[in-house]
Structure formats: structure tokens, C-alpha cells
């Protein structure tokens, strides 16, 4: 049980912390501290079991089918790290309590802090590699939030983004690596993976896996060449740095390298990749740290350097080096956290971290100075401190482990050089800040901080000394435990002692100490002349490179996006058509499909008709740009010929529908045409050649498209018909569908649901049109054009009001006739509706006819006249139509039939005789009503626009009153 708790508790605490009030600094600290301590206690609670060599495992099933479960696994190595994380966490919390300003929004800080702690513990305790990746990424995310805690500062934002980008990239690599490992091993369980080292090392995927895992680890541990994010992450509050960059975040990288050491290590590739990266980081970090001006900068680069040391040790492929690495992990965490804390105190007390300004603080804050000096000495590897021990082990490893010819000299030399730099920067850190004459121009007057703020640092420094003096007693068993967890039971012998005799490593240590002091003197002039600038390396500024890369990605992707997409419609349409043509053609390339199976007849009359139709289409295409009216008339002609074709080819229903739709469409587009000002022939903005090429291209595509469709139709027409649905429909229509007209029976019965959907589309479009037109704003020209047009007319309906029942002049007789036609048209629409089931017709045609009749009234008498007299409420028609259609379909439920089943009753009426009533008729009536409503709504709403803008035209003042009232009436009604 405790294993899960160790991970879960911090997350729960995180949520709790987030909801605490804004200024609850103490409560937050207590919460976080208690949680850290409880976790530490839980870790210690497992100690007996772990020390007895047991591996504690707790399994929670999560995604078993994918082999991913929440497995918490505690072995010695994990135990060590868990302890480190929790104890360090508790100390940092205590420190942060005093560090954070009362005005700081601490809930956010502690919330993310706890989340980070939980994630880190999750990484450490993961027994499943995918789970490990999850927590790994969580550390990236929560550290992102922590680094950006002071997000109003640009460096914080940038540092956070950089850290996130680099570590997330690494995380993705790690994921890939883990997936591959899991694939090879056949399980994502850590235990099984650790047992399959040989399998993985001999697999062809070994190198990619190695590279990917290394990428993950190196980015996280800020190793060369990914080290640049760490100095930038120093914008975080110092407790964050103290925690993340000493014991946890950056340690996750080396943790994972050590964790997978049994699986991936002991190959040459491992040595070159890991060792190489470690060596480079060691040198570069140490070198750069020497020249930093910012105290945290020094620590950041020294962290890089020390982690490079650990990485190098891990890369050496020797068991002893591994033990040294683990030892140094512990040591580094202890002294580096302490140093960060000291830096934070200095910053907190003086208001600056600039080593150029700071000086002589030893007098002002003696305790802090003492602590910092001891910790720095540990970092430099001064004897009797813990840093010395691990460095000693490192030196001996460089000497004895790798006996190839060139590395036997090179490696020790580089180690000494790096250590000299380490000494140099530690020395400089101390001397510049704490020695010399006291600084005068500090932002604040420094003094030692409260006791409890010094406490964490003091504890750590004490540990440094204790380990340095009594290594075996303090840390020996733990180190043994951790090493056993990785290496198994055959650990090489090593001794944790201060004095191994006067041997080569000791000489190297002395050399390093002396060399460090010498280096400081050599470089001293540089500190003054170029403060904060690292020689040579400043050319390779990581931040600038990163920014450049980011900007590069930005602009390249922008250019590529422009290249691969378009905000314009025509290229899009072109793509669709061309792709369809190509893809549609591909299957046919094999040939064998163009087999004409029936001779085709030729009918001259039909040919003449289609000469007309085709010419209409081409004419419309040609004229649509400047002669909209002509194009419209021509397309009307094409529609007419289509209608005749349907009639000719035995589709009376289609012919009827096509005809009415054609009529309504023409009226509709004409209504719209009124708002489209005449196109003037403008000067072309593109060159004639471009225009020609574009037109030619489009023409070619159009011809191809047309021919393709022709070919397809021709092939299909000359084929035999497959045994299809039609015979069923033809046979059942009359006996079971109860109608002679099979098409209508299909529409309202067999496939009534299509109709159901189709009328919905019509209704939806109608209300959309109506809604859109309420916000319609016409082009200015078209309002003026209207005035001009009205000037020409001399007589006519301008003054038509309620009192005049008829307009005078030319519209008189059309009006009389039109009104005469209204009942006739309505009657005929009902005729088509009622007999649709048996003969061509049906609700749709009927509805359109009726709508046309209404539109005719509008056309001939004007909106005002019609609407003061009739109460057409198109929206109600639509709604009621839908409701009728819907409920007539649902009637079937009452007799336990599925939706849309036809239910019929025979009623005997005295005079009329038998009346056959069917739900199908009601369905058709619903269709009728909806079509009437939708069509009228669209056309009338469009027509109303001119009413709305009529009163805006100054010439038509007479209309103002009438117009307004009508408008209101109408909107009332249609609403």
C-alpha cells in the first residue's frame, strides 16, 4: 500500500494546495512540508524490506490489454532516490516558506511543487516503463510551470519554454525508446526488461533504442549538446532551482541511465555516446561556470559539469564507475542544494546575485558564508568533504578502467583539467561573494536570514561533512543497497575511505586544486574586462541558437504552409476536381472496362434538343461573368431541356419536379440579381498571359471532367442492369405499398426516410436563409441603382396602398389574371398532392406549385398588398409540416410497427363511399406544407430586403410609413 501512497499523496496535496486561499503562506508550507515528510516516512517505512533485498512491487491494473499497468516498484536504487526526493523536498519547503514573499501567490507555487515532487517520485518508483514515461513528462510539465512561476518576467517565460521544449522533445524520444524496448521484450514491466539485457543488446534495434533513451536522458540532465536550457531555467525562484537542479529534475536523466544500465550499458556505443556526452558536458560546464557573473549561473553550469561527471562515470562501462556515479549523485544533490539555498539567501538579503557587485558578505552574514564556503569546498573536491570522495573514485576510474591506448592518457588529463576548472569556479564563487571589502552599493542591507531559513542549508552542509569524514558509516550501506539493485549481487569490492594511500588519484586531486587556483589567476583579467562572458563559448550561445531555431521553424513552417495551402477558394476547388479526376481514373487504367454491350440508337429529335441544351449550358458558362441576366435565361433553357429529357425517358415525376424547381430557382436568382450591381469590365489585374494560362488550364480540366462523366455514363448506359432493388419495388408497390406510382411509393414509403431527411434539409436551409437575411446589408450601389430604375417608370404601383385594390396601368391586367390564377394554381397543387401516390405528383411538387402561386401574387401585386391581406406564416408551415411528417411516421408505434410504417384505414362515408386514408397521405401532406413554407420563406425573405431598404432610399418617402409597418408585421408573423 505505501508505494502508491508515496506517489499519490503529493498529487492530492497539489490539488489541496491549489484551492487554498491566496495568502495562506504558512498553511501551504505546512501542507507541503507534512506531505514531504510523510512521504519520507513512508519511504523509510519500507526500508527494512528493501534492505533485506526484497523488491517491493505494487500493481494497479490500468490498461492491461496494452500491457500497461500502474506498477510501483521499490528496489534499493529507487529507495535511495525516493528518500533523496522526499527529504530534499521537505528541506526545500522549509526554505521556501521563508524565501517566498508574502505577496506571492503561493498556492500556485506549492501546488506545482507538490505535483513535481509526485511526478519525480513516480519516475523513481515506476515499475512500468510507460508509466515511467508518463511521470517523466509530468516532471517536464510541472517544472515548466515552476520555472515560469514569475511569468511576468520575460526570462522566466523564455527559460520555461526552452526547458519544456527540450525536455519534452527528449520525453518523446524516451517514449519511442521505451516502446521499442517493450516491443523487443514483449512487456513494459521494468522487472522483465531489466532481465532481458542480452536480448536487447543483441537486437538490431539496439542502437536506435540507445540513441533514443540517451536523448531522453541527456536532455533531461542538461547534457551537452542540450545543456543550454539549464542556465536559462535559473529564472525560476531559487527554491525551485535548489530542488529541481540539484536532487530531482536533472537527476532524472542520470537516474534513468543508471536504471537501464544493466540493459543498455557495456557496449562500445554506450561508451561513446554516454561517455562522450558526459565528458563534453563535464568540460564545457566547468569551463563556462568559471566565467559566469550570476551566482546561479555558476551553479547552473557547475550542475551541467557535475552531471557530466556522473554521465561520464555511467558511460565507462565499469561496475565501480557505476558505484562512483551513484555516490556522486548523492553528493552532488547535497552540496548543490545547499549552495543554491545559500545563493537564494544572498539574493534574498541583498537583492542581487551579480558577482560583480557582491563582495565581502562574510562580515555581514557570517553563518550563510560559512555554510556556503563548506558546500563550495565540497563541490571543489576538498578533502574531508563528500565531494572529495566521489571525485577520488572518479579519478581512479579514469586511470584504471579504460586501458585503450589513447584514452589511458587523455581521460585522466581531461579529468584533471575539468576538476581544475571546478576548483576555480568554486573558489571564485566564494572569494568574490564573501571575501574582499564589503560591497556598498547593494540594493538592500544584508544580514543573516531567520534561523529556519538557514536550517535546511545547515543540515545539508552537515551531511557533506559527515559523509566526507565517515563515509562508510553514513552512506556505505545505502550505496551498497543502490548498487546491488542495479548490478545484482556480484558487486565489485570498493572501499569508502578518506585515505587510500598516496596514489595517483590523490596526486590528480592535488594537481586539480593547485591548477584551479592557478586558473583563477590566469583568468582574473577576463572577469573584469568581459564580465559574464565565457571565452570562445560565447559564440555558441545556446539561447540565441534556440531562439534562432524556433524562429526558423516558425518561418519555414509559415512558408511551407503558404506553399501547401491557400486561403482562396479556386485552388481548393481545383484540387478537389483534379484529384477526383485522377483518382476516379486510376482504377480504369487497367483497361477492359470500355465494352459496349448494347448497340445504341440515335434519335435526331433528342439530338436537336440537346444541341439546344448543350448550347444553353455553354452559353451560360460563357456569359456568366458580365451578362448575368442572359446567363440566367440560358441556364433556364438548359433546365427546360433537362425537364423534357426526364419526361422523354419515362420519369414524369422528375420532369414535374424539375420544371417547378426550375421556375422557382429562376425567380429566386432574379430576386438576388437585384442586389448584385452590374459588373463593369475592369482592367485585369493579371497579365493576359497569366489569364490565358489559367483559363486554358481550367478549360482543360472542365473538358476532362465533362468527358470523364460522359464516358462513365455511356459505359453504364450500355451495360446490362444488375439484379437490383427495382424489381422488388415494382412488384410490391401496388400490393403492399398501395400506390400505382412506384416512384412516389418509394419516396413516401419504401425509402420514406430519405424524404424525411430531404424535407428537413429544405426546412433547415429556409430558416438559415431567413436568419442570414435579417442581417443582410446590401451593396450601396444596388440601393442607388434602384432609385435610378424607379425614375424611369412613369405610371404604376408606387402609390399603391390599401385603398387601391388594383394597380393601374400596365400591371392592371396581369394582376387580375394573376389573382384569378391563385385559386386555380392552388387547386392544381392539391390535385398533384392528392393523387401523387397513384400518378406523377406528390407533396413536393404540389407544395412547390402552391408556393409558386403565392410568389406570383407577390410578383404581380407587391409585398405590401399581399401581406396586408393574407397571413402566410411560412415558419409555421415549415414547423407544422415537419411535425405532421414526423407524427405520421410515429403513428406506427401505436400498432407496434417500426417508425415510418404505413398505417391505413378504410372509412366509409355516406355519399362519397369508401375512403382510403393512409398515414402515407399525411406524410405527403407534411411534405407539402413544409415545401410551401420553406419556399415561400426563402423567396419572400429575399424579396423583403427591398422593402427594408426602400425607405432608406430618399426618393421613396411616400413609402416610408407603409414600409415600416409592413416590415414589423412581417417579422411578427414570420417569427
Amino acid at each position, binding site marked *: 500500500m505505501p508505494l502508491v501512497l508515496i506517489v499519490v499523496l503529493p498529487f492530492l496535496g497539489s490539488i489541496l494546495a491549489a484551492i487554498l486561499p491566496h495568502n495562506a503562506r504558512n498553511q501551504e508550507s505546512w501542507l507541503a512540508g507534512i506531505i514531504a515528510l510523510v512521504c519520507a516516512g513512508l519511504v523509510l517505512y519500507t526500508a527494512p524490506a528493501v534492505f533485506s533485498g526484497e523488491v517491493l512491487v505494487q500493481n494497479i491494473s*490500468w490498461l492491461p*490489454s*496494452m500491457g500497461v499497468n500502474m506498477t510501483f516498484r521499490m528496489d534499493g536504487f529507487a529507495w535511495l532516490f525516493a528518500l533523496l526526493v522526499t527529504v530534499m523536498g521537505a528541506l526545500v519547503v522549509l526554505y521556501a516558506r521563508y524565501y517566498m514573499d508574502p505577496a506571492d501567490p503561493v498556492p500556485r507555487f506549492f501546488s506545482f511543487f507538490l505535483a513535481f515532487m509526485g511526478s519525480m517520485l513516480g519516475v523513481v518508483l515506476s515499475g512500468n516503463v510507460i508509466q515511467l514515461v*508518463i511521470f517523466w*513528462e509530468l516532471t517536464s510539465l510541472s517544472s515548466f*510551470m515552476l520555472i515560469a512561476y514569475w511569468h511576468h518576467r520575460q526570462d522566466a*517565460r523564455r527559460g*520555461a519554454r526552452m526547458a*519544456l*521544449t527540450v525536455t*519534452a*522533445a527528449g520525453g*518523446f524520444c524516451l517514449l*519511442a525508446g521505451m516502446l521499442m524496448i517493450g516491443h523487443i521484450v514483449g512487456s513494459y514491466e521494468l522487472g522483465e526488461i531489466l532481465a532481458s539485457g542480452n536480448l536487447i543488446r543483441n537486437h538490431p*534495434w539496439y542502437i536506435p533504442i540507445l540513441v533514443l533513451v540517451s536523448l531522453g536522458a541527456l536532455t533531461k540532465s542538461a547534457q551537452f549538446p542540450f545543456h543550454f536550457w539549464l542556465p536559462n531555467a535559473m529564472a525560476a525562484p531559487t527554491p525551485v532551482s535548489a530542488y529541481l537542479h540539484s536532487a530531482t529534475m536533472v537527476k532524472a536523466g542520470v537516474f534513468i541511465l543508471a536504471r537501464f544500465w544493466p540493459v543498455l550499458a557495456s557496449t562500445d556505443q554506450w561508451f561513446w555516446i554516454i561517455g562522450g556526452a558526459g565528458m563534453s558536458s563535464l568540460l564545457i560546464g566547468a569551463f563556462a561556470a568559471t566565467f559566469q557573473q550570476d551566482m546561479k549561473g555558476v551553479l547552473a553550469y557547475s550542475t551541467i559539469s557535475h552531471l557530466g561527471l556522473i554521465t561520464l562515470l555511467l558511460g565507462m562501462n565499469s561496475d565501480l564507475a557505476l558505484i562512483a556515479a551513484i555516490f556522486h549523485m548523492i553528493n552532488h544533490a547535497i552540496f548543490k542544494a545547499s549552495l543554491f539555498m545559500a545563493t537564494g539567501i544572498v539574493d534574498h538579503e541583498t537583492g542581487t546575485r551579480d558577482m560583480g557587485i557582491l563582495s565581502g558578505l562574510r562580515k555581514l552574514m557570517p553563518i550563510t558564508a560559512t555554510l556556503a564556503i563548506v558546500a563550495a569546498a565540497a563541490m571543489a573536491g576538498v578533502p574531508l568533504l563528500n565531494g572529495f570522495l566521489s571525485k577520488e573514485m572518479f579519478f581512479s576510474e579514469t586511470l584504471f578502467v579504460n586501458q585503450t591506448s589513447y584514452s589511458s592518457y587523455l581521460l585522466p588529463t581531461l579529468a584533471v583539467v575539468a576538476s581544475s576548472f571546478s576548483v576555480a569556479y568554486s573558489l571564485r564563487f566564494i572569494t568574490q561573494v564573501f571575501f574582499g571589502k564589503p560591497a556598498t552599493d547593494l540594493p538592500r542591507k544584508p544580514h543573516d536570514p531567520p534561523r529556519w531559513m538557514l536550517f535546511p542549508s545547515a543540515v545539508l552542509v552537515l551531511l557533506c561533512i559527515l559523509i566526507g569524514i565517515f563515509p562508510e558509516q553514513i552512506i556505505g550501506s545505502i550505496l551498497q543497497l543502490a548498487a546491488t539493485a542495479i548490478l545484482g549481487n556480484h558487486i565489485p569490492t570498493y572501499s569508502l575511505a578518506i585515505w587510500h594511500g598516496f596514489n595517483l588519484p590523490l596526486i590528480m586531486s592535488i594537481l586539480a586544486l593547485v591548477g584551479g587556483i592557478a586558473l583563477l589567476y590566469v583568468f582574473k583579467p577576463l572577469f573584469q574586462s568581459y564580465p559574464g562572458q565565457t571565452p570562445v563559448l560565447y559564440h555558441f550561445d545556446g539561447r540565441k541558437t534556440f531562439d534562432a531555431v*524556433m524562429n526558423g521553424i*516558425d518561418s519555414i513552417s509559415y512558408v*511551407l504552409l503558404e506553399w*501547401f495551402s491557400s*486561403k482562396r*477558394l479556386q*485552388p*481548393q*476547388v481545383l484540387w*478537389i476536381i483534379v484529384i*477526383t479526376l485522377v*483518382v*476516379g481514373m486510376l*482504377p*480504369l487504367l*487497367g483497361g477492359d472496362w470500355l465494352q459496349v454491350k448494347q448497340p445504341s440508337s440515335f434519335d435526331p429529335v433528342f439530338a436537336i434538343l440537346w444541341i439546344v441544351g448543350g448550347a444553353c449550358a455553354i452559353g451560360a458558362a460563357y456569359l456568366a461573368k458580365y451578362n448575368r441576366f442572359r446567363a440566367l435565361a440560358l441556364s433556364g433553357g438548359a433546365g427546360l431541356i433537362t425537364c423534357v429529357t426526364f419526361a422523354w425517358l419515362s420519369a414524369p415525376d422528375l420532369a414535374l419536379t424539375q420544371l417547378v424547381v426550375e421556375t422557382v430557382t429562376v425567380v429566386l436568382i432574379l430576386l438576388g440579381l437585384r442586389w448584385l450591381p452590374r459588373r463593369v469590365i475592369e482592367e485585369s489585374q493579371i497579365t493576359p498571359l497569366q489569364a490565358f494560362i489559367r483559363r486554358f488550364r481550367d478549360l482543360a480540366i472542365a473538358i476532362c471532367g465533362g468527358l470523364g*462523366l460522359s464516358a*462513365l455514363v455511356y*459505359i*453504364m448506359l450500355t451495360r446490362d442492369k*444488375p439484379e437490383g*432493388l*427495382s424489381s422488388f419495388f415494382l412488384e410490391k408497390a401496388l400490393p403492399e405499398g398501395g400506390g400505382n406510382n412506384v416512384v412516389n411509393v418509394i419516396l413516401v414509403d419504401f425509402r420514406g*426516410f*430519405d424524404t424525411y*431527411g430531404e424535407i*428537413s434539409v429544405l426546412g*433547415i436551409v429556409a*430558416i*438559415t436563409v*431567413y*436568419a*442570414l437575411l435579417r*442581417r443582410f446589408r446590401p451593396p450601396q450601389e444596388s440601393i442607388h441603382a434602384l432609385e435610378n430604375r424607379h425614375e424611369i417608370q412613369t405610371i404604376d404601383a408606387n402609390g399603391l396602398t390599401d385603398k387601391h385594390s388594383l394597380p393601374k396601368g400596365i400591371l392592371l391586367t396581369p394582376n387580375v389574371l394573376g389573382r384569378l390564377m391563385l385559386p386555380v394554381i392552388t387547386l392544381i397543387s392539391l390535385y398533384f398532392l392528392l393523387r401523387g401516390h397513384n400518378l406523377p405528383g406528390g407533396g413536393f411538387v404540389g407544395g412547390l406549385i402552391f408556393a409558386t402561386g403565392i410568389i406570383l401574387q407577390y410578383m404581380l401585386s407587391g409585398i405590401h398588398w399581399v401581406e396586408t391581406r393574407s397571413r402566410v406564416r411560412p415558419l*409555421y408551415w*415549415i*414547423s407544422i409540416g415537419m*411535425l405532421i411528417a*414526423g407524427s405520421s411516421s*410515429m403513428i406506427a408505434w401505436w400498432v407496434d*410497427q*417500426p*417508425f415510418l*410504417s404505413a398505417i391505413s384505414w378504410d372509412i366509409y362515408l355516406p355519399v362519397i363511399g369508401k375512403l382510403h386514408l393512409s398515414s402515407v397521405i399525411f406524410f405527403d401532406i407534411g411534405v407539402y406544407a413544409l415545401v410551401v413554407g420553406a419556399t415561400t420563406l426563402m423567396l419572400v425573405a429575399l424579396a423583403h430586403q427591398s422593402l*427594408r431598404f426602400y425607405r432608406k432610399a430618399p426618393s421613396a418617402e411616400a413609402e416610408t410609413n407603409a414600409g415600416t409597418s409592413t416590415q414589423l408585421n412581417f417579422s411578427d408573423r414570420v417569427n
Partner: protein
Amino acid sequence: MMGLLDHLPILPVAVPMMAGALMLLLKDSRRKSLTGLAFLSVFIQFSVAVTLLFMTAGSIPNDWNNHIGVYLLGNWVAPFGIVFVVDKLSAVMLVLTIVLGISALIYSTAFWDRVGIHFHPLFQFILMGLNGAFLTGDLFNLFVFFEIFLAASYGLLLHGSGSRRVSSGLHYITVNLIGAFLLLISISLIYGVTGTLNMADLGTKAGMLDAENRKLFETACAILGIAFLVKAAAWPLNFWLPNAYAAACAPVAALFAIMTKVGIYALVRMGSLLLPTGAPAAFGGEWMYAIGLGTLLFGTLGILAEKNTGRLVGYSIIMSSGTLLTALGMPGVTLTGPSLFYLISSVLTTGAFFMLVELIKRTESFGSNVLSVSFEAFGLDEDKTSDYSGDVVGVAIPAAQAFLGLSFFTCAILIACMPPFSGFVAKFALLSSALELTDNNLTGPSMSAWLLVIAMLASGLATVIALGRSGVRLFWNSDTLQTPKLSIREAVPVSVLLLSCIALSIFAGPVMDFLADTASSLDDPYQYINAVITQASNKPIPGGQ
């Protein structure tokens, strides 16, 4: 005899339609009745969808064949009449739609439903169309439902009008009309070749075609595939999407998150049914894979390059489409389950993200003055009275900013497929299954699996970079940042969606199992085909009179 449970499959279509029709009778001023009706309708739909889901999973006892429900509309037997088929895939999509729908509806009541008229009916109709498209087992009926939800989506996209909406709406409509033509051409061609429109019947008949008819059939399927790919926003057929989605008002855009997935659903469905007879190139296989990869890369490019947050989400939709197409284009069935998981996760996420982006926009520049955007078409005097009267924009809850930040963070993690939420689960499952297909030489499926892995990881990284940048820009950059006015009605749906993502990640195991079942039944389309065809012989054909 039919029990209530037997009628369930029709309800997701019938209920919104009747509700929408009723709403047209009510004036827009009767808001309480309208919203009440809307919520009643979505509630019924939700219950029905969940019940159907459990029925297909077998948790609710039923006499369905293979737990596949078949509803014969008009009581006409299968290949002749239209059938509604509820299998696991449909049920999942239904639930997804309605969850998204409920969230969008809650969100819209904050005030979006008053930006223009007839919001609620259109909303019901779009649900009707989506539900129908997922349920229908008839190819032409599928087209009809496509048209229904497209028509409603036109209306909703233009809801509130304004120059940006209208101009992007024009593109959207044009492209979709061309798509409709392609659908019509291909469906009729399929009818001409095989003589059937029923998808299950098609699955059997496609195998019986002779060679030359088969070629025509493949042409038809290719065109059909293009039409679906247009809906699914595959590159290069998707230039219209970012602008259109960014222009739509937030709840609508959120609902649009599922519309591209309808195209993918259709591809999967057709691909599955045509599988035994050798699915034509367009459905699955290398073509889909290649297009998907292109789309994925295009989406990634867009995410990297785009500065406008609204369009950014649009590109993330494209990216998710690309991922899905790529994954579904891989051979075998192993990737289908994870793909579906990814689909669910990405729909919920992008839906939440669209709503969120709108809220975040308010913190920029003019603060809560969102209306300046939505009412830019307010040149006309008579509209002023009608719609918005500042009653419920809501109070600024103190934690508004924190809520927005946290939600954005969650969304970003989900979209970038970073742990620990469902996005990561989906990505992991996809990658893991993709690796199953690899062997040691880099050709064939192995090659494509590697490409998928690389592309997905790269796109994830690109998303991290891009969303990190915009998150930093949106939340941490501006001095003029204002605490937004955030209505609880806007916060709730965002949280609902994000919480369902989290729930999805917690219950990833059972969900993944269910989806794996779904995938395996898709791999064995005879379950579906048999369910539809045997239904014909089980039920007595009534007289119909």
C-alpha cells in the same frame, strides 16, 4: 411485437427533429421554453445513446444478433427499405456526439443562442443529421444525413452573420456542395454497378462483380472516398477548414469538432464492409495512409505557423484527422481500436478547446467586449431590439483566470498527446500497436509504421512548441490582461469535456477493451452483414397496409 427498447435506434433522429420542428413554432423570445425543450431533447438523446451503447456491449440484455441492433424503417426488409444499424461503433459515435452536443448547448445558453435567430432548432437539426449519419445502414440515406447536418452547419456557421463568417462560409458551402455532388455521383454509380444501396448488401454484392464492373465499382468507390476525405478534411482538400471553424461562434465550432470525424466514420464503415471482398483503394490501405500522413504533416505545419488561436485549433483538428487516417490506413486491425480511442479523445479535446479559445480571447485587448466581434454585422437598426440584452453574461468569478489557464494547459497537453491524459493513452496505444507491425527490414508495413511513429512524435513536439508559445503569449504576456467575465454556463461545459477526457484516461482499460472489440467486429464485417440480412428473415413482413 416490439418493445420500447426495439424502438430506441430511431429516437436519436426522431427526437431532435420533432424538437426542432416544435421550436420553430416558438418565438425566439420564449427562451425558457426553447432551452427547456432543447435540454429535454438532448437529455433523451443522451439516455438513448447510452442505453444503446450498453446494449451493443451486451450489458443490457437484448435479442440482437451479435449485439447489433437493426431497425427496419417502414418495416421493409433489409436491402430494400432503409435500415438503421446500431453496432458498437455507431453507439460510441452517438454517445460522443451527444456529449459534445450537451456541452455545446450549455455553453450556448450563456448568450450565443441569442446572437442570431433560430439557434436552437438548427442545433437540434445538426444533432439529427449527425446521429442519423452514424446510424444509417444505407448509402444514400447516409448522403441525406450528410446533407442534413451540413445544411444545419451552414446555418450555425453563419449564425450571427458578419463578414468573416460569411466569407469563410461561402468557401465552406462551396466545397461541401462539390462534395455532395461527388457523393451523389459515386453513390449512383455504385447503384448502377451493383444494384443496391444497402451497405451490408453492398458488402456481399461487391464480391460478385465481374472484372469490368469491378473496375467501375472501384472508380465509384474512389470518388466516394474523395467525398468522404473532403469531409474528413484530408490534405489537400482541407484549405477551407481553419478559416471556417475559426469564424464559427464557439459552441458551434465545438460541435464542428465531430463533423470531420463523420467523414472518418464513413471511411471506416465502408472500408470495413467492403473488406472481405477486397476494399477498394480509397478505403484503407496505402492511399489512405499516404493521404493521412500528408494531412498529419500539413496539420503540424499549420499548428507551427499559425498565430491565430482559433485557426490553430482548426489545424489541430486537421492534425487529428491526419493521425486517424494514417493509423487507419495501416494494414491490419490492431490500430483500429487505438484509433477510435484517439478519435474520442481528440473530439472531446478539440471541442473543449474551441470553447476555451473563445473565453481566452476575451482576456485579450478589449476584455469582455466579445460582442464587438459577434455583432459586427449590427449595422441594421431593427435587429438591435431583438436579440442580445445584457442579462446573463455572468459575473467574473475570481478564479476565472486560473480556470482558463488550467483548462488551456490541459487542452494543450491533450492535443499534444502528452501524459497523463487520454491523448497520451491514445498516442501510446497507437504507437505501440504500430510497432507490432514492424519487423526488422524497413519495407512495407514496417516502413509505414516507422513513419507513423516518427510523424506522430514530431507532430506532438510541434504541438508542444506551438501551444507553449501561444499559451505563453495568451496568459503570461500581456500587461493589458483582464480578468474575463466568465459565465458558469461557459465554464461547466469546458470542464465537462475535459473531465470526460480525464475519465477516459482513468478508465482507459475498459474503454480500450470495448474499442478493441469494436475494432475486431469491424474486422469481421459479416457480423454486421448477417445482422442486417438475417433481420430480413427473422421478422415477418407485415402487410404494410
